[in-house]
């Protein structure tokens, strides 16, 4: 049995989840060195910033979100450019693609997710892009400079963000979505319609209920055939049809897998000492459902908790919540939790103003807030998250929903969280 002193901690994956865990471990156990592996060649960056990079809002040199000094400060050994091939849970070893083996006592898997590629003929053409790593984003950004138009497959958050970014650069953009509305996982149909209208006003063409059946590329352009019979020829196409967790390297191992890596409330996998967070971790959601929650929030929250657990401070994750915030053409929309409440018999407060444009919605179940959604209200979305997770009394926000939505939320917050704020500062 090794003493606690000799514990060697290894983190695989160097994005929000892995880094949040690293920081937490360093906070609790600053003496122990942590090893952190990255697939990328250089400093870590966030996949979230890639869209802004493509849109030209941020330059390449500002893309990395930690600097070289950081790992020294965190007492960590940063090992870039390492793809993990295999994890040997018996000997507790990681096998890297170049043959390097790293022994661990505690392991955190935070390898993230990759774009899911739908089975469409011709989708592997060089003019079809995905946005998940710096290389593809760099290529896409270069091509966008010299292109006139493009087509985006999938109207999820990434797809819509790229559409807005490219449209701002002056490209003609067409978005194709299989389902009947844009952002189907993020907003309800009414709000999606408002969002669609804003996009159309900004010159983005949106085709819902449409499927891409074939793609045919040349070296200069690509022809996309739709099931509506229409053929569109564009300079390039972007696939943004969701993500799948990066768990290929675990297929051989005996770590329990489901949709992602199965984890318990401590974010520990079926093997003791091996944890998983972020886009790869499939755990119990806040409402008890089994979900993978590929959001930055989830990665950061889980990373902190996994870091605590690894450093010996046992803590449970409250469960992932669907949380999304979306800034497009200077409009802000966000949704949290079970916002599509109509079907399950909950109390739903809803107001849609297409002309302003504004939308707001609260879903109450058993006198607790379980979901909400808002478009263009100057509210603080973080408060809603607290209200759901901490089960605050939603009386004020319900009563003031119509007249004073913003202050209803704020007064709920003030009533319920006074003490906590004080503690938070002084702790």
């Amino acid at each position, binding site marked *: 049995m090794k003493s606690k002193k000799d514990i060697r901690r290894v983190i695989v994956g160097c994005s*929000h989840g892995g*880094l*949040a865990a690293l*920081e937490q471990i360093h906070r609790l156990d600053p003496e122990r060195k942590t090893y952190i592996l990255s697939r990328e060649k250089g400093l870590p*960056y*966030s*996949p*979230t*910033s890639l869209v*802004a990079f493509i849109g030209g*809002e*941020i330059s390449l040199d*500002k*893309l*990395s*979100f*930690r*600097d070289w000094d950081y790992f020294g400060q965190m007492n960590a050994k940063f090992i870039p450019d390492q793809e993990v091939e295999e994890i040997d849970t018996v000997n507790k070893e990681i096998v890297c693609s170049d043959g390097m083996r790293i022994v661990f006592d505690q392991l955190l898997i935070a390898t993230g997710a990759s774009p899911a590629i739908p089975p469409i003929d011709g989708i592997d053409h060089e003019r079809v892009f995905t946005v998940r790593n710096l290389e593809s984003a760099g290529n896409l950004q270069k091509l966008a400079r010299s292109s006139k138009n493009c087509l985006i497959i999938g109207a999820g958050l990434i797809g819509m963000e790229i559409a807005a970014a490219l449209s701002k650069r002056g490209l003609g953009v067409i978005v194709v979505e299989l389902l009947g509305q844009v952002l189907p996982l993020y907003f309800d149909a009414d709000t999606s319609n408002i969002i669609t209208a804003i996009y159309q006003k900004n010159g983005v063409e949106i085709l819902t209920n449409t499927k891409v059946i074939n793609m045919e590329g040349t070296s200069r352009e690509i022809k996309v055939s739709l099931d509506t019979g229409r053929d569109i020829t564009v300079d390039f196409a972007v696939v943004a049809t969701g993500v799948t967790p990066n768990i290929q390297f675990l297929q051989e191992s005996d770590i329990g897998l489901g949709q992602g890596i199965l984890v318990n409330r401590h974010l520990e996998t079926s093997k003791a000492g091996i944890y998983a967070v972020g886009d790869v971790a499939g755990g119990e959601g806040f409402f008890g459902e089994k979900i993978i929650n590929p959001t*930055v*929030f989830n990665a*950061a*929250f889980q*990373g*902190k908790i996994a870091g605590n657990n690894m450093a010996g401070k046992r803590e449970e994750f409250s469960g992932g919540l669907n*949380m999304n*915030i979306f*800034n497009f053409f*200077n409009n*802000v929309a*966000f949704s*949290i939790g079970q916002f599509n409440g109509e079907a399950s018999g909950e109390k739903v407060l809803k107001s849609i103003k297409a002309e302003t444009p504004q939308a707001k919605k609260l879903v109450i179940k058993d006198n607790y807030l379980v979901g909400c959604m808002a478009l263009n209200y*100057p509210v*603080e*979305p*973080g*408060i809603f*998250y*607290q209200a759901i997770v901490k089960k605050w009394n939603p009386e*004020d926000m319900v009563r*003031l929903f119509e007249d*004073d939505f913003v*202050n*209803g939320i*704020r*007064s709920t*917050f*003030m*009533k319920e*969280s006074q003490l906590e*704020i004080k503690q*938070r*500062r*002084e*702790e």
Partner: protein
Amino acid sequence: MPSTTPYLKIYPEKCTGCNLCVYSCALKHTGDFNPRGSRIRIFPKDTEKKNYIPFNCVQCKDPVCIEVCPTKSIQRNGDGMVVQDSDRCIGCLLCTMACPYGGMYFDEEANKSMLCDYCDGVPECVRVCPENALEYDGVENINSLLKESEDLFSKGLALCLGCSSEMAVRFTLRVLGRNTILHIPPSCSALTAAGYMTTPSVEIPASVGFLTNSASFLTGVSRHYKREGKKINVITFSGDGGTADVGFQSLSGAAERNEGMIYICNDNEGYMNTGMQRSGTTPFGAWTSTTPVGDIGKGKVQPKKEMPLIMLAHQAPYVATATVGFLSDYEAKLRKAMDTEGFAYIHMLNPCPTGWRFPPDRAQEVSRRAVQTNFFPLWEAEEGKVRVTVKIRARKPVEEYTKLQGKYEHLDKSQLEQLQQYVDEKYIQLRSLESLS
């Protein structure tokens, strides 16, 4: 490291919900009166009773905004304060959603998120609030002053590592400017005027005289320039021995005659540069080389001589106390002293790492703690009217101050109680003086 993150102290009971802070913040940051551009918001505490709470970033200890920010736009700066670099912000707004306290906002104009920056240490909201419901608690940001003013120190200093007198003299000269004549009797701060080897450390006319007669010396200088019709800042930076002990008669005389000078007492509670002997201002219980600690001796037996009150009794036009931990407070007092016709006395508490026995990086902390425990209250008296300038809402026990210093290491419980009682009595006395005037 001691926590030095600045933040906004909020007194909700005083807030009337007038929204002046919100509008002035928006105006300062965006040039527009749109409240959505404000970094501070008014939250209703109770919608029926019309109670309000101003609210901004609480500078929490464990900020999630930093974790979720994809571009390192939000970071902790050198002081440990959470700051935002809006050039790096891409407007993803993840931080606004991650912040559990509603402290990050969306800036529509810039299409980015925004965070309270405390206006570089001079918060506009605090300035405009008519009810004083906001108070800035933080390391004073004197950057604006330092940018404009000139550092009158030349290279080379012979002071101890971490000496707060150096900071005090340097800062004083920055505020007073070149139109100043400095006289320093033998004391720690004399090394700033005498300099290192043969080069003086200050770039203004400076002299080092005798320990006993600084005020008399300055009387001559001051009267000379008065006769010539020149307005010159004539100042001395005298040690506590040169002020409270051997230099007292000349000081008392000059104050009584109301001579035009700024007399600053650099109080480090002992003769620190000659071997740390006790002086009149050494406080009760403190170790010095002449109040040793052993089987019989338990540090100084007598309490600290209350020099500022003595000077108040001289009916000097301006009397104030100051310390290096509250520099903007000191700056305001120094400017009042400059404007005073006649005698101005400022008593500065300058913690001494060598003689008080604390690490050289803690002078600021010790200085602040002296004020927070009411051991050294900051006040001023203009024409005899006493006003406490830094009010401490919940004073810390004096032990919080003494435990930072080796010179109090030996204090037993009864001594601490005695010191506490003394500090409380003195503070009550001061507040009664304030209420009387």
